[in-house]
């Protein structure tokens, strides 16, 4: 009887050794902080705004209409990598 049980126990043990790490590897990665992506698309009108500049001037996006193209470069924070 003992001789019959031992192979079964060994088989279950070995099967567990190989399947457990695989099951762990298949777990979904932990959730990452949500990164906002713009819903604006090429061809949309850029929302107008009026903001104060570093030189204390008032800058309005629509003031450039018909005069200049504008590159709007949103950066994370001053004194960081941008």
């Amino acid at each position, binding site marked *: 009887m003992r001789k019959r049980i031992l192979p079964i126990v060994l088989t279950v043990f070995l099967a567990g050794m190989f399947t457990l790490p695989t099951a762990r590897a298949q777990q979904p990665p932990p959730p990452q902080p949500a*990164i906002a992506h713009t819903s604006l698309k090429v061809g949309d009108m850029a929302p107008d705004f009026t903001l104060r500049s570093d*030189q204390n001037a008032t800058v309005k996006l629509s003031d450039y209409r018909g005069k200049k193209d504008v590159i709007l470069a949103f950066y994370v924070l*001053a004194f960081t990598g941008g």
Partner: protein
Amino acid sequence: MKDTEVLGISIDAPPSNQAFAEKIGVKFPLLSDMTRQVSKEYGILNDQFQFANRTTFVVDKQGKIQHIQEGNGAIDPTDAIDICTTVHRKESGGAQ
């Protein structure tokens, strides 16, 4: 490019942006979106940290968006400059 204006935008206050501009030597305006309203309207406000994600928009003379660059790619202005060159050609009626 004389037909193009670059505007930097962050949630920093004007004095912070002024000090930052002096430190890195930028010649274009850095704008303060302290209320986060503009970042929200452009859909790039990071709700968790309350700052705008790094994004570049190219807006043509009609006020239409011609190019959007998000994430780390937005650090390199090459694409935005190339798009502006193409937009200028289109506006002047030249070939692409």
